[in-house]
């Protein structure tokens, strides 16, 4: 078990190093940050001077090694734009991102698990059709549009919820729905098909034969067997929500990592981009590891010896 975790952490580190290389070089394809930092009429000599001071005159591979060396000590450099340490800029935004992703994940589970289970139990009935239609609708609508619709209806139309911002519990509702609706379709279908398999199994019939009520059979004995494929896909979507929430964060002015990174990309603020992406990749790797470890909790047959 411990060996397995160490091995997985090692693999995760390799992924993170890979991500750091990609983000370092790709961000530099976006253009020269000096142009944005200095006034257009700045004399070429000053431009060169600034470039040297910022270390941007070095060859790229050298810049990467400097960056990587510093990053190991936790130093991601200062933001070009805000003149503050890039890492703390991003870390300050991290709780809001995790909060939003968890809320969106919860929303998607609250919809997909009941819909998936009931669709399987009442296969071919109106609830099956409704679940399918509802989920498809979520998958067909891009989250920025869902977000705008929510704002239009719930905030402006009925004045029920704040249109944007961060702070009270009411603020989380619309961003969580906008971000969490998309995965509902896939999750519902996974729960449905897993439950269909399980409900046909001998052990469910055996449970019925010794007097289990349908409620106990479905929500206790069947659902846990159907949980493994669900947890797998939840992990994937959770990681995607952590890293890919910038559209929703932008619409709702949510102070998360995604929005910070996107703004940093536009201003060619390389240290912030690098810190943000690396942090996201660490979260990604961690969430995948947690998913894999949770299998063992759900299914006792899964062991981590090898």
């Amino acid at each position, binding site marked *: 078990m411990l060996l397995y975790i160490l091995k997985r952490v090692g693999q995760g580190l390799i992924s993170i190093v890979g991500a750091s290389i990609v983000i370092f070089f790709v961000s530099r394809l976006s253009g020269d940050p000096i142009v944005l930092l200095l006034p257009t009429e700045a004399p070429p000599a000053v431009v060169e001077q600034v470039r040297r001071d910022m270390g941007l005159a070095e060859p790229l591979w050298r810049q990467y090694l400097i960056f990587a060396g510093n990053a190991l000590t936790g130093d991601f450099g200062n933001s070009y734009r805000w003149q503050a340490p890039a890492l703390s800029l991003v870390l300050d935004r991290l709780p809001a991102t995790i909060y939003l992703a968890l809320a969106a994940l919860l929303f998607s589970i609250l919809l997909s698990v009941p819909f998936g289970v009931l669709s399987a139990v009442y296969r071919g009935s109106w609830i099956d059709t409704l679940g399918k239609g509802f989920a498809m609708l979520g998958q067909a609508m891009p989250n920025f549009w869902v977000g705008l619709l929510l704002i239009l209806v719930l905030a402006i139309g009925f004045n029920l919820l704040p249109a944007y911002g961060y702070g009270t519990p009411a603020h989380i509702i619309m961003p969580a729905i906008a971000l969490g609706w998309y995965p509902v379709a896939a999750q519902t279908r996974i729960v449905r098909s897993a439950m269909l398999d399980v409900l046909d199994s*001998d052990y469910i*019939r055996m449970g*019925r*034969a*010794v*007097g289990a009520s349908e409620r106990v059979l479905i929500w206790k004995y069947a659902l846990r067997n159907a949980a493994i494929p669900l947890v797998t896909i939840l992990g994937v979507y959770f990681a995607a929500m952590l890293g890919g929430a910038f559209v929703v964060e932008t619409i709702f002015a949510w102070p998360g990592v995604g929005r910070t990174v996107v703004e940093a990309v536009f201003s060619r603020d390389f240290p912030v981009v690098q810190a943000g992406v690396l942090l996201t990749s660490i979260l990604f790797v961690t969430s995948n590891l947690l998913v894999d470890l949770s299998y063992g909790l759900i299914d006792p*047959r899964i062991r981590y010896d090898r």
Partner: protein
Amino acid sequence: MSQPLLRVENLRTHLFLKRGVVKAVDGVNLHVDAGETLGLVGESGSGKSMTSLSILRLLPRQSGRIVEGHIWVDGVDLASLSEEEMARDWRGRRVSMVSQDPMTSLNPVFTVGDQVGAPFRYHGLAHGARAVREAAVKVLRRVRIPSPEKRLDDYPHQFSGGMRQRVVAAMAIACAPRLLIADEPTSNLDVTIQVQMIALFRELQRDSGLGIILITHDLGVAASICQRVAVMYAGRIVEVGDVRTIYRSPAHPYTQALLNAIPHLGQRRRRLHAIAGQPPSLIDPPVGCRFAARCSRRTAQCDAEYPPEVELASGHKVACWRPGPEAA
């Protein structure tokens, strides 16, 4: 004669499938007395499993339905009960089942203790976690699981095949049911475990007067533990009688053909006789005798009308126009 434990009257169970209505059980009558084992034999698709699932009302939910008939246990017609009543008062409590494949009958992600304790919880026979555990230990001991108190928290995959079969049996007998339906309980087990299972059933029966319906296609297994045998063919019972009569002097040509298909020890040179042809479609069964197409004694009458059941001797009934011993 006293009231039998189970009496099935004119049971008709249909499966409503896309390709048609399968008349899986088409007018079955049978009874089981307390302390008795009735063997229900027949080839795959003859309706023996559907008969047993009908008794427990565990038919496939989408397609299966009892369309006619009565299933009397203790003066109650199970065919008329609601799903809730079946679960609360009957399944696992008075009527129970050991299912076809013991290897897949246990839930892989719950402990054996949880699953064996479940019937006690469902039927309110033990209250609180500790009482349920004790009850589970007791019943596991009855089916001879070694040191059961240490194994309650193990999962099914940590048990061997024979032990798992015992665990399934323990679940089925936990609440001391009056009737146990054993659907091919030994077909996936090796012979030594089969023998142990059969011994276990016998012991249960002696201790508690349990009535058993043993469903099998293995006439050897049926002969070794049943008092009476009912032979099913294409959704109907074609012959029923005590085990000695059925094996020594079968009157229905199908029973005779089945017996001829069993290899006998010490008769190496004898050829085994396969039954030519296929069972009829149960979507559109023939009006006459269903075995007619494969029968050597077929007459015009066999094709025209289903034969009535005649009682050749006390308890020996056969549905055939020309019953009798096999022509030599």
